[in-house]
C-alpha cells in the first residue's frame, strides 16, 4: 500500500503574526516554522498503518527550498521519501493542481492531508486535490480503520460525528482524533540520522494558473482596557453585560 501525506510548512502556533512590505506579505522574521499541526495527526496515523501493514509513506510539500527542514523532519519521524514541488504556495487551486499532477502518476491508495493549514486556513486544497484525483473526500477526519482496501472513517459534523465506509483510494483531511495528541510522533536521534540518507526529490512547478490573490493583510484592532469587576460584586458584571455590552 502506498500512502501520500501532504505537509504544510507553517509558523509555530505560538507565533506573533506581523506583516511587511506595506502589509502585503507575511513577515517570517524570527518565526519558527513547523509541520502544520493538523498534518502531524495524519502523519502519525500513516506511521501506525506503515508499522501494521508495511505500507510506504511519501511526504510532499509545495514550497521553496526553505521548507526542506520541515520535510526532513517528517522523514526523521518515519516517512520513506519526500517530494518538494518548487513553488510559492500562494493559491489553493494552484497548489492542489501541482499536488495532483504528481500524485496522478503514482497511484497512491491513500492520501492524507490536514483539514487546513494554520497560516492561511483556506481548507481548500484537500477537497480540490481529491476532486482532481477523482477519489472520495472526507473532511475533518477524526478516525480511520483499514481492513485491506476497505476503509472505515469518522468525520466531525456540527455537534457530532458520522461514520462512513468505502474502498480505497480516498483522501482524508485529518485533525486531532485521527490519533490522540499524546501519540504524536517526534523525531528520535536514530530517525534524524536515517533521514539524512532518505531521498528528497525536487520537482519544478509547471502549473501557472492562480485563481485568487491577497491584496493586503491587517491585524485586529487592539482591545480597549479591560473593565475589572470585584469578585464580591458579580452583580455589576450582569448589569454591564445587560446595559453596556447588550448581550443579555
Amino acid at each position, binding site marked *: 500500500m502506498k500512502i501520500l501525506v501532504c505537509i504544510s510548512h507553517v509558523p509555530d502556533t505560538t507565533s506573533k*503574526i506581523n506583516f511587511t512590505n506595506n502589509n502585503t506579505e507575511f513577515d517570517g522574521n524570527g518565526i519558527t516554522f513547523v509541520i502544520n499541526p493538523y498534518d502531524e495527526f495524519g502523519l502519525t496515523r500513516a506511521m501506525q498503518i506503515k508499522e501494521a501493514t508495511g505500507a510506504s509513506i511519501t511526504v510532499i510539500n509545495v514550497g521553496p527550498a526553505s521548507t526542506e527542514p520541515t520535510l526532513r523532519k517528517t522523514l526523521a519521524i518515519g516517512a520513506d521519501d519526500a517530494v518538494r514541488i518548487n513553488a510559492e504556495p500562494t493559491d489553493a487551486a494552484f497548489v492542489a493542481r501541482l499536488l495532483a499532477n504528481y500524485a496522478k502518476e503514482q497511484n497512491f491508495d491513500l492520501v492524507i492531508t490536514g483539514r487546513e493549514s494554520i497560516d492561511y486556513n483556506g481548507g*481548500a486544497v484537500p477537497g480540490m486535490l481529491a476532486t482532481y484525483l477523482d477519489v472520495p473526500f472526507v473532511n475533518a477526519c477524526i478516525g480511520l480503520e483499514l481492513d485491506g482496501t476497505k476503509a472505515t472513517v469518522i468525520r466531525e459534523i456540527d455537534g457530532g460525528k458520522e461514520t462512513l465506509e468505502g474502498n480505497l483510494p480516498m483522501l482524508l483531511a485529518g485533525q486531532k482524533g485521527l490519533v490522540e495528541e499524546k501519540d504524536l510522533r517526534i523525531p528520535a536521534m536514530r530517525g534524524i540520522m536515517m533521514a539524512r540518507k532518505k531521498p528528497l526529490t525536487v520537482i519544478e512547478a509547471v502549473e501557472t494558473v492562480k485563481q485568487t490573490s491577497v491584496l493586503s493583510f491587517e491585524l485586529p484592532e487592539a482591545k480597549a482596557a479591560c473593565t475589572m469587576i470585584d469578585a464580591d460584586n458579580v452583580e455589576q458584571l450582569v448589569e454591564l453585560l445587560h446595559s453596556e455590552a447588550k448581550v443579555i
Partner: protein
Amino acid sequence: MAVLVYAESWNGSFKKATFEAVSYAAQLANKLGTESIALTFANNDDSTLLGKYGVNKVLTIANDSLATFNNQAYANAIIAAAENTGAETVVISNTNNGKAVAPIIAAKRNAALITNVLDLPDSLSPFTVKRKTFSSKAFAQYSTEAAQKVISITPNAIGAIETGGSAATESFYYAATESDNRLSSVSVDRVTGKIGLTEADIVVSAGRGLKGPENWGMIEELAELLGAATACSKPVADIGWRSHGEHVGQTGIAINPELYIAVGISGAIQHLAGVNASKNIVVINTDPEAPFFKAADYGIIGDAFEVVPKLIEALKVYKADN
C-alpha cells in the same frame, strides 16, 4: 450571473448559519444586480421561510437518494443547480458540511474559492472580500478575477437580515451517480439538544483552573442559564476532561460569538487565536497576571469556585427581574 446559495439543513431544519448565508447571497445578488436562488436538500421546514431573507427563488431537492448529507452528491447537485440557473457565484456557510462540499464545487467548476469570509465584497471589480487568516490572528483582503466563484462565509460573522420578501419554490431533481456513492454513511452520532459551538451567541468555556471534570456542573449550569454553548481549552480536551468537539482555539474550533466567558483559562496565544473574534470577552481567573485579561472586555480576579456560583445566583435574580 445569478447567485446560488446552499441552504443547509441540520436534521431537516434550517439553522441560524443557513439564514446568514441566504441573507448574504441575497445582498450580494443585489450588489451584482442579479437574482439569488437558494437550494435546499431534505428539508422539513417551510422553504418559503428563505424568501424572508431576500432570495428570489428556492429550489428544493426531495429525492430519497439525497435524503442524508453526502458531500460528493451534494456538491454535484449544487453544481447542477448552478448550471441550470446560470449562477456564477455559489455561497456556502463555512460549517463542517459546507467545508466538505465547497472545494469539490470549486475544483469541478474551475472556480475561485474564498473561505472564512467575513463581509460583503468591498469591490466587485475585481471581486475583493475580507476573510480571516492566520487562525483568526489576522484578516486579509482576497481578490479574484474569476467569473466563477465559491464564497464560504464564517457563521456568526454576518447577521441575517429579514427583508420581508417572499420566494417562489420549485422542485429540483438531481440523480446521484455511482461515483457520488463511493462512501456510504454507517451511522450519525449527534449530540442533540445542545447548542452548536460555531453558531452560538454565547459560549461559556473553562480550562485547567477547574481542577477536574467533576467540577463542570457549574459551567453547564451557567451555560444553560444563558442559553449558551459550552467549550473548553486545549489542555482540558487533551487530558480527556471534555471532548475534543468542545476545544476552542488555534487547532480546535474557531468561534466568534457575541459573548465569550472564559473561566480558569490563562489565555495562551493559541487559545486567543480561536476566540479573539468574540465581540465581548469575560475572563474569570485567580491569576491577576493571566494574559487573557489583556484580551478581555470584563475581568474578575477570583476563584472560579466562588465567582461562578455567585454569577449564577446574580443571573437568576436578573432573569427573575427581567
